[in-house]
């Protein structure tokens, strides 16, 4: 089970959480945090903020590649299974067609590709997001409860190489944070 449920690195502190009043404040703060060279951090908003991924300097997700590889694997598996069953293991003549009736194999090949690609998309998304995680230190914060309502947050994790409890906190304050708190693990 421990393998299936991702864990955060050990340490006394999870990191620093800063609250911002408006999407604009958050957007500008994100650009500064990005330019300061932080890598292990995130922004949290009640609704999608357009262009925030650019302000955060996020690279494109590798998810499409996972889906493509899974889809192709599914196609090979679907076709391979039918080929093995019909042409190798149990060769039967069905309605006078050859054993390797590839046109008849296409619908199943297609469906298995879709199945594998969809599983790749869902499981890949969960994996890349480190989910399912039963508890997250961010939920210790009372202020963070407003993340689904009207507040905007930046969290910087303590295992970021540039993290320093007091200096990072001061940086976020200087960026216009309404409140800054240090969260325990």
């Amino acid at each position, binding site marked *: 089970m421990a393998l299936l449920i991702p864990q955060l690195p050990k340490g006394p502190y999870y990191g620093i959480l800063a609250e911002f009043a408006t999407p604009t404040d958050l957007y500008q703060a994100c650009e500064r945090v990005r330019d300061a060279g932080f890598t292990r951090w995130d922004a949290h908003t009640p609704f999608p903020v*357009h262009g925030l991924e650019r302000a955060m300097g996020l690279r494109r997700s590798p998810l499409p590649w996972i889906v493509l590889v899974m889809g192709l694997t599914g196609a090979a598996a679907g076709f391979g299974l039918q080929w093995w069953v019909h042409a190798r293991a149990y060769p039967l003549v069905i*309605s*006078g067609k050859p054993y390797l009736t590839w*046109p008849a194999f*296409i619908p199943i090949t297609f469906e298995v590709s879709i199945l594998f690609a969809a599983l790749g998309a869902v499981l890949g998304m969960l994996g890349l997001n480190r989910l399912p995680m039963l508890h997250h230190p961010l939920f210790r914060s009372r202020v963070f409860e407003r993340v689904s309502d009207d507040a905007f947050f930046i969290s910087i994790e303590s295992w970021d190489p540039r993290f320093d409890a007091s200096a990072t906190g001061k940086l976020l304050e200087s960026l216009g944070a309404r409140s800054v708190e240090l969260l325990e693990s």
Partner: protein
Amino acid sequence: MSERFHPPTLAAAVMGQATIPPGHPWNRLPVVGAGCALLGAVACAILGAANPKQFFFSWLVAVLFFVSLAVGALFFVLIQYASQGGWGIVVRRVGEITFATLPVIAALFVPVLFGLRELYPWAVPGAADHDALLRWKAPYLNVPFFLIRAALFFVIWSFIALAYYRGSRRQDLTGDPRVSARLRRFAGPGLIVLALTSTLASVDWIVSLTPHWYSTMFGVYFFAGSFVGFIALLSVVVVAMRRAGLLDTLISPEHLHDVGKFLFAFTAFWAYIAFSQFLLIWYANLPEETIWFKARMQGSWMAVSVLLIMGHFVAPFFYLMGRTVKRKGPTLALGGAWLLAMHFVDLYWQVMPTLHPEGLRPSVLDAAALVAVGGCFVAAAGWLMRRQALVPVRDPRLAESLAFENA
């Protein structure tokens, strides 16, 4: 009241890039098109006199190609209205201009009517005398009823096309949001009418070349090809316009991306329909159904069939899958130009084995007919392009379309 909803200031700001300025090379499109049309028509007249049967088949393929592009454009614009799509408003006029050429295309269909006996076995007098199936189908497949239907299809399509073209143009002047509301209300019923008429037209003009054969899926197949064809044309035209300095800051990579997504999705849809039609017929293996595919799986026609599988599906499917390809003008236009060519090959493959069952026999008349009909299409579209802005400048949702971003 209408002024409040869509300030003319945006229209004025957009206008500069949205009209073809005097002296711009695109002003010559009608002349260039007419020149091509004349050249093609002369070639058709000279070569066609020696080989009328080949001429009628070549002309049929060429006309079907542009009919399908115009019908595809009608589907595209009506779907945009019915679904209240926002992103596509900035490219909508390309569709409106494409289908506004339908009256011209209807006129270009007339030569086909003179070749019915050459084209359609059921139209030969006495054909039904010794053919029980043709006798049974005669109440539908007879020359007078065929002519009535063809006239009806073009009248209905032209009526819808001109209603949408004129409504959109009127809105350019008045900015009245009720135009959008009215056209949206008619889009749903219009799509049903369009689906029925294009299905029947494809059966009349393509399926009845082999009058014993039938496929209940053919209408959808024709739609799928038409839609891919129009989106391919759209992607080429949009990129060409940007290169020619028209709409170059209005149409962003975000819009190109969405056109590319449509192209990708409907390439897959075409393959899905084409394969479904093939699989059901191939698996059931009934002679009266397999005859059509048998003709296309023999000799050099098999090579064209393989080209369609690879070139109309496999290659563009993987080519258009990536994000960057769809967002860059040259790569998107390359995919569009390729699929436009493949759409022509698809129609050629549907029609020509009737004339040349022995194998692929390309003719100069194929090219001549394409140049003649294509020249008329370009001339008509070029003339329409000069009549108004190249985007619906006072559509109430133009600002939304301009600001569109893929999430």
